[in-house]
């Protein structure tokens, strides 16, 4: 490295003396922007451009193929009407209700379990190096593999129920995966299994980052373990909670694959999330405008969560 730097020092004055130098140095100044440009352009076109395109499509009457005549917010009106069609429930009603149940339980349980496990692991545990990877590995699996594994595990005829019957508990009954009212909870189980270890790792990193002096001071002041965590540690972990929430909300809204692999949509589409609704309506039911409208609604929901978060994150940084 040093040799390069030395030769550069010698060269620089000559460069400036030459007439071409200003063009070259201007190019040199522009270089960072030129390097960044392709990525930024790709983002503009393939993210923001495509989002506008999807919004546009949602205001047309596209069916199997895209149509570009704007026909007004008909797709949204249909979704709005379906929002309240609960008897029998429309697919959209089922999807958004499921999203509420799944999102709330999945995020809540993952946060609670992740924090709980992280605190347990932070008690100077022998074998932490073995346990941590065991908790974390499901995150490396695809939703499809997770779905296949849990589908087998939760199947009444093959999995848990059958096993407990063989062990003599014959009255045990667990058929949620085949039950249209409970199938969404099996998606929660599999989802929590997959992501909670990762959330644990986030909290553990946060715990390890807390200044030991603060803890010592509180202990000297006579704080109990419970008080210590409730009053000092957990408030200090606020940023981790926020990051973990964002990661989970993002995963929850994306959980299309898990529903497909675990439940194939559930009996009569009873396990659908909005992501499944969008896919089915767009690519299988030839209702492209409705599919696009549902995608726009998904995007709006996520935007409402993400934008304030990003805004606060990026504002704090420069200071």
């Amino acid at each position: 490295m040093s040799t390069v730097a030395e030769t550069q020092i010698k060269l620089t004055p000559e460069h400036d003396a030459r007439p071409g130098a200003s063009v070259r140095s201007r190019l040199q100044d522009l270089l960072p922007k030129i390097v960044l440009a392709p990525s930024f352009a790709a983002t503009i076109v393939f993210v923001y451009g495509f989002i506008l395109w999807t919004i546009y499509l949602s205001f047309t009457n596209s069916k199997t193929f895209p149509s570009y005549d704007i026909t007004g917010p008909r797709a949204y009106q249909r979704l709005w009407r379906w929002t309240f069609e609960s008897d029998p429930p429309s697919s959209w009603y089922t999807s958004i209700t499921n999203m509420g149940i799944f999102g709330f339980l999945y995020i809540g349980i993952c946060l609670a379990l992740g924090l709980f496990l992280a605190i347990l692991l932070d008690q100077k545990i022998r074998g932490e190096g073995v346990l941590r990877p065991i908790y974390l590995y499901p995150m490396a699996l695809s939703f499809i593999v997770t779905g296949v594994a849990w589908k087998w595990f939760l199947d009444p005829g093959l999995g848990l129920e059958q096993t407990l019957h063989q062990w003599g508990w014959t009255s045990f009954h667990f058929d949620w995966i085949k039950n249209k009212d409970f199938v969404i909870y099996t998606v929660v189980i599999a989802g929590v299994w997959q992501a909670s270890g990762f959330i644990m790792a986030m909290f553990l990193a946060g715990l390890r980052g807390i200044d030991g002096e603060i803890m010592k001071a509180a202990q000297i002041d006579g704080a109990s373990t419970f008080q210590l965590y409730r009053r000092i540690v957990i408030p200090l972990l606020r940023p981790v909670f926020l990051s973990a929430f964002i990661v989970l909300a993002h995963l929850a809204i994306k959980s299309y694959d898990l529903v497909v692999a675990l439940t194939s949509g559930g009996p009569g589409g009873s396990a659908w999330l909005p992501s499944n609704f969008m896919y089915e309506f767009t690519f299988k039911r030839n209702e492209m405008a409705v599919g696009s409208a549902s995608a726009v609604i998904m995007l709006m929901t996520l935007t409402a969560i993400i934008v304030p978060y990003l805004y606060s994150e990026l504002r704090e940084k420069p200071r």
Partner: protein
Amino acid sequence: MSAVTSPARPASSGMSARTINRIVIYSLLALFAIFYLMPLFVMLVTSFKTMDEIQNGNMLSLPQSPTIEPWFKAWGETCVGLTCAGIKGYFWNSIKMVVPAVLISTLLGALNGYVLTKWRFRGHTLVFAMMLFACFIPFQSVLLPMATILGSLGRFGVTLQNATGFNFGLGNSTVNLAFVHVVYGLGFTTLFFRNYYEAFPTELVKAAQVDGASFFQIFRRIMLPNSMPIFVVTVIYQFTNIWNDFLFASAYAGTGDVMPMTVALNNVVNTSTGVVEYNVNMAAAMIAALPTLIVYVVAGRYFVRGLMAGAVKG
């Protein structure tokens, strides 16, 4: 942070309470370890059992007469849709898609992170924010336009093929998917490198600049040699994400020989013709899971350490 129940505390609760405390903690930890290992264990033992044993035996019991047959069958014979040639072809499809996508998106992310931290310009925050937001969009909101574009590029590829005898990868599903994953992975890779380089001493870069080192020289000689941890993290992250993707794969390569592994696996498992061979299904699932599991086992430590350095804020 030190452990809270360490002996430093005044011995008001006594030794036995502490022992009970430890027993409770270890039992809980063990219980959760079982919870996390159970599905993998069941998958693994089932994949080594005969069908006879699966139907009459217990899901948790070890295979009585272990057989590797299901693995061979999953790899080379099982039916995916109508073709019965195993999942090996789809496995290679995934490899061919993942490797270029990971390398390109990681390298671009490194360059972007470098520019956004060490060569700041007016509006760098806005540029970063816009790229960052792209990480979080539900991909459903870009799925359809991308399908349309890939469709027209495919038709253009056919035209080129007729005119020049070469289609330049247009219309090739593997190329399409690799491209899609690069585009929608950029936000993440940029985020990782930007956060990492943010903590990298700017003085070093400034000093090299004064010494006359150019943009790429600084990147190659100063930034890259110090970026190993974040490279490992980003590569693992991207590899896992792209290998495991199902949405793009099923939308743009959902049928035929071009399917990646995840779509093929889903088809194997949901094929309802004939007797369902659970052992073969589980072996197929294990094969689909192995690459990411191996990466995780080999570099898991790095993954966690890197997460602390790069992704977790605050």
